[in-house]
């Protein structure tokens, strides 16, 4: 009798989690809908200065019929995409090399240091990374790396202060790499020993063994690691709002090296920067639209992460 009740109770608690997530998707989307409905697909396109548009929305008249919704969010989406992709690509290369080093080549003593180091780096709060970024890297880049000509060359569109795409990508990379290293190390370790030993027995050198056998077998885990890191990078708000310059500007690759020094502002950072205005109705709806875009991206990422893990199960390898 009590047994049945325990099952129901536990099942109910488990369903609470499900209800919460479903509720979240519904809540956020209903709240965000007016912003999407008023802009259509142009919401995602370029056009005008996104910061000015946000100010207009914030100052829209009190009458609901006259609410301003015009928004072209392309610079924010572009900023999110470019910081995320930059950090994940650099981070993945670096994480793969470090993971191989930890699993195969590191001397035992160094390995004993490296593993806690990775866990520590993964646990450092993002605000500390942001603090170091804004107090150390930003002044360094602003004063020493950016030349006066570079500042002048783009002065008519944007000011270069040091808070830039470069700092954002560098710090984001440092933040997400440890997570990837941890997952890839686990996967490389769980490659069946007989596979690598078989290759060694054929006279293949250690680098070739790990590169052609272990890394290849761990490919799904590497994808899963990249997916997880992408989710972290997409959602990082505080650190990016501290170091990315907080200007709704799309850095232009045509500017050459200056491109790296141009400021930007991803979606998540935009939400933090504008959280004060949530109570203004049309403005709040616009902010929730940003959240909705992030939510959809992370749902798609979870889905692809799940898909990437499937082949692993076939080998009995756990990711």
């Amino acid at each position, binding site marked *: 009798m009590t047994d049945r009740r325990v099952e129901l109770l536990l099942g109910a*608690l488990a369903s609470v989690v499900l209800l919460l997530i479903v509720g979240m998707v519904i809540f956020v989307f209903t709240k965000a809908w007016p912003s999407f409905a008023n802009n259509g697909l142009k919401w995602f396109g370029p056009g005008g200065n996104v910061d000015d548009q946000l100010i207009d929305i914030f100052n829209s008249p009190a009458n609901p019929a006259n609410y301003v919704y015009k928004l072209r969010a392309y610079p924010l989406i572009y900023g999110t995409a470019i910081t995320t992709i930059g950090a994940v690509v650099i981070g993945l290369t670096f994480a793969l*090399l470090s993971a191989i080093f*930890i699993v195969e080549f590191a001397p035992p003593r160094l390995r004993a240091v*490296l593993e806690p180091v*990775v866990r520590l780096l993964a646990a450092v709060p993002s605000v500390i990374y*942001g603090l170091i970024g804004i107090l150390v890297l930003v002044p360094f880049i602003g004063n020493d790396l950016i030349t006066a000509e570079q500042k002048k060359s783009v002065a008519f569109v944007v000011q270069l202060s040091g808070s830039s795409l470069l700092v954002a990508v560098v710090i984001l990379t440092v933040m997400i790499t440890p997570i990837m290293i941890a997952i890839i190390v686990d996967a490389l370790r769980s490659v069946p020993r007989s596979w690598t030993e078989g290759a060694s027995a054929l006279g293949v050198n250690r*680098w070739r063994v790990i590169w052609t056998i272990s890394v290849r077998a761990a490919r799904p885990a590497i994808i899963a690691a990249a997916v997880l890191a992408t989710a972290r990078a*997409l959602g990082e708000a505080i650190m990016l709002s501290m170091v990315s310059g907080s200007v709704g500007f799309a850095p232009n690759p045509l500017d050459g090296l200056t491109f790296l020094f141009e400021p930007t502002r991803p979606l998540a950072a935009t939400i933090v920067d504008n959280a004060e205005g949530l109570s203004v109705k049309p403005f709040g709806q616009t902010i929730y639209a940003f959240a909705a875009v992030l939510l959809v991206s992370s749902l798609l990422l979870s889905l692809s*992460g*799940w898909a990437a893990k499937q082949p692993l199960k076939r080998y009995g390898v756990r990711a």
Partner: protein
Amino acid sequence: MEAHTTPLPGAAAPAPRTRAVESTATWRRRDRIGLALCWAAGILLCLIAFGLVAYMAVRGVQYLKLDLLTTRPLSDLDQSKTGGFLDPIIGTVILTVVGTLLALPLGVATAVWITEYARPSWLARAVESGVEMVAGTPSIVLAIFGLLLFSESVFSFLSFTAQGGAVFGRSFFTAGAMMSLIALPLVFGSTREALQSIPGHVREASYALGKTKAATIRRVLLPTARPGIATGTALGMGRIAGDTAIVVILLGATLQLQSAGDTPGLSTLKGTGSTLTSYVYNNSPAGEGNAPEKAYAAAFVLLLIVIALNFAIDLLSNKRKAPTWSG
């Protein structure tokens, strides 16, 4: 395979596996470049970590004074009068406790249900992917969802209500509730891992002694899974202590703890406050305070907390591995 590597009880420890020493001189150039890159990556990783910790330690020792830890923050234009960060430290503790207290039962219950019952199976699969989705949701999205949810008048008992009846939605309760969602996947994951590693015959032995399923869970499975649950909880606490977005948006990030209502204790939980993370954020050049020395000092304290939690996780997961069932 495995049988060779696990030592029999009582047998002498096997000799450490030796590697054939191979000279890289015979390798092709591409392979040697790969090896060199690996070394470079590993050393860079060490340098970054030690650089980070050393820099924070130097700044922390330089700026951290004992009275910063024991005085309350005040708002003043003069930096020498803005006080310390006693309130944010208390805020971090309260928020971590509230978040953990909510996440722990929910996470453990979900994990037990998934591993032990999981009926009907479609619901189990849905719950599992639900937890995965929570894990993937950015904390900033959780934060503004929480604000939307808890500003509903149904939840007015959780936070401060303004004169006109508008619910503020920001309090330790509401921030803690959303924080628990951040910790939940970690608690869930490690609890499930621990439960799954308990072999089926242990459950069967318990049933054979006439215990019900509920009693088996409570008396046998949960005690065995305790190290796993503890590890997950500690991981979750680290995430809660380190999260900023939810604090900035859902806790109000007021300088001092501001209570709402008259009931002592409850009023603090219903009130707003700040944590170390939001204190660092507000005192960085990006925030309103702009007092880098205090931001460094607070960040150092925060880093120490995180390192301590990390250390606790190490102890928990290494010290008492689950008992070996075989043999």
